């Protein structure tokens, strides 16, 4: 088989999948009753769902950043017994069906759970609340950040750290002034992906915190209550946010690659 024939086959295979991935979005944009979009987006419930989603996703990602980036660093740099198991545990939320994650969370943090119970009695519900949404999102989105941070820190030349030690710097300072800045692009990409994952989170959230509505939950409510037409403008909204988010991730990666080459 000629070299070109092989290349063509590979290209055709790739293009076929790409078509499958893009065509629903294309048809959706074609199908969308564009005139009805502004009216439906003005729906106060939709707006509050959007605000809830943006706020919860942002709070979640801040929490994940504070705890998850150090975890990624430790997984990348320290060797200790149980590191393999720890890595496995980190991957688990990624592969659980989100609904199952929601059920697990509800068991522990729900009104009858060992942690959720006392909080509920004290008048602070962990489920069906802003907190509940955040807890679900953290559970589901953390692996993205931890894994991205770990590979970003792994890519940092260990010699940088060693040299910094010879300059008398302690590990706290070295983390902030060497490892984190050098791994920055990868960590930021991980945080953005995690934020998008939190924003789109539905399965765990719908079990753990049906209220307050996040955008995905509200879309589901509209879909099951009113039908596809009512859900379409909201879908457009999420698509737009995702598109902007992913563009930003790719842009940050492009910037960091360019700096490496320059």
């Amino acid at each position, binding site marked *: 088989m000629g070299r070109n024939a092989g290349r063509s086959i590979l290209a055709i295979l790739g293009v076929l999948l790409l078509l499958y991935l893009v065509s629903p979005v294309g048809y959706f944009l074609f199908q969308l009753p564009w005139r009805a979009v502004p009216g439906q987006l003005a729906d106060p419930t939709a707006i509050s769902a959007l605000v809830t989603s943006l706020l919860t996703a942002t709070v979640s990602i801040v929490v994940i950043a504070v705890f998850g980036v150090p975890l990624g660093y430790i997984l990348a740099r320290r060797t200790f017994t149980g590191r393999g198991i720890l890595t496995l545990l980190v991957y688990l939320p990624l592969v659980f069906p989100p609904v199952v994650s929601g059920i697990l969370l509800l068991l522990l943090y729900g009104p009858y759970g060992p942690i959720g119970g006392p909080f509920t009695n004290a008048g602070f519900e962990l489920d069906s609340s802003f907190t509940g949404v955040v807890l679900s999102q953290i559970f589901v989105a953390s692996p993205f950040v931890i894994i991205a941070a770990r590979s970003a820190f792994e890519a940092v*030349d260990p*010699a*940088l750290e*060693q*040299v*910094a*030690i*010879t*300059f*008398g*710097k*302690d590990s706290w300072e070295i983390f902030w*002034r*060497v490892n984190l*800045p*050098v791994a*920055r692009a990868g960590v930021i990409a991980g945080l953005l992906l995690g934020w998008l994952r939190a924003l789109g989170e539905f399965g765990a959230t719908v079990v753990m915190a049906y209220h307050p509505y996040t955008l995905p939950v509200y879309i589901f409510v509209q879909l099951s209550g009113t039908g596809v037409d009512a859900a379409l403008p909201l879908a457009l909204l999420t698509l737009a946010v995702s598109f902007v988010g992913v563009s930003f991730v790719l842009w940050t990666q492009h910037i960091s690659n360019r*700096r*490496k*080459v*320059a």
Partner: protein
Amino acid sequence: MKSVMRETNDTTKALALEAQYRDEVAPTILAGDGENMLSVNLHHQLGAFQLAINFQVPLGLIVLLGSSGAGKSLTLRSIAGLLHAQQGHVVVNGQVLFDSAAGIHVPTQLRHIGYVPQHYALFPHLTVAENILFALPPSPARISWQYWRKQRAVRRTRVAELLSILELEGLERRYPVTLSGGQQQRVALARALAAEPRLLLLDEPFNALDAAVRERLRDTLKQFHRRFAIPIVLVTHDHAEAQQLADTIVVVQHGQVAQVGSVNDIFYAPRTPDVAQLVGQHNVFTAQFAPPPNQQKFAPPVALRLQPPVPSSSQSSIASSQNNEHGWLPLPGADLPPIPSIVGSKVISGCIRTDEIVVRRRGAGSVPPMWTAQGSVQWVGVLQEAQLYGHMVRLLIHPYVPGLSSDGLFIAESVLEVYLSRGQWRDVEVASGQQLVLEIPSKAIHLFERLAI
């Protein structure tokens, strides 16, 4: 007189010589009381690899020379404190940085030892100036705006100073990736200096550079070393680099110190066959003391007779036929350092120094005599190849060691490496396949102290 000597019992004489050599084993540890000395003793087991390094040398430009995987970098990292050796000590200029027996292990942060790893490890996210600023010792904290501003000015001045010393002016705002290899190296040196180290460790600093600029940058490093009088320990596998730079060379092989000495010691008198190979003395042979055949006119009572190579030895070792008339080498003169032989064995090993062999055109006459009046031996060889090698000419010659019978024997497979200046080569120049006369004086012969470390 000569006839009298020849009549003495040659075998007894050979044994006496052997015994004399055996008694004088030169110590490898240079004396010193710790002042201006670097004393390193490290024992560390890393998987199957055993590091057992022990040397004490005057501070200066110390080169750890050895092939890759010999344990040089591990040694360097232990001196820096980045590797915590299981046993031993590290003492720099009388200051104990590590002593397992006394339970001392000064952390790297407090050692004030500069470390420049192979690829310099410049911080990629910082500019040249910021890289250097990073390494400056922190000024004592005080809450005062004026104080802070003054400190900032002091630090900036220091950076400017370092930039100018290493000729980096104009590059302060550049990021490391935009610099050439040589510039990166200078930034790494400036940054290491900024921390005011008591000792500077350089791990293969010229490896990442083009061959064309290496030699020049080595000279720069040597000047840098002289100018700042900062002790340096440099790791390399390149014997030319060691030769060009070192005050003291520590040869590291298989996790151990094979030899310590000046450039001259190491290159002129390698202690073991391995060290000889490492420093480019490839004409390694094994021989034994024996009386040469009586028929030779100028033959001394005792000389070295080449042994056939053992199967495992390298290609370049020289063999001889079993015939008693072949493969004689002169003994080194009395002005050379004593040569201990291998205890319990009559076989000794040595090398024929590549740059002490005299090469002449073959005259019209017959096979030259084996011994000259000056005590050299003459061989005939066939030129395999002549190559330009830097400013020298490198000859590969198949020795052809004639006995007294007319049919001399080629020494199978072995090739003698000879270096001549271009001028010397011009006088004898012959084509490949042609014969040459090799004169091997006793000063060309170096006998190893030991067969292995």
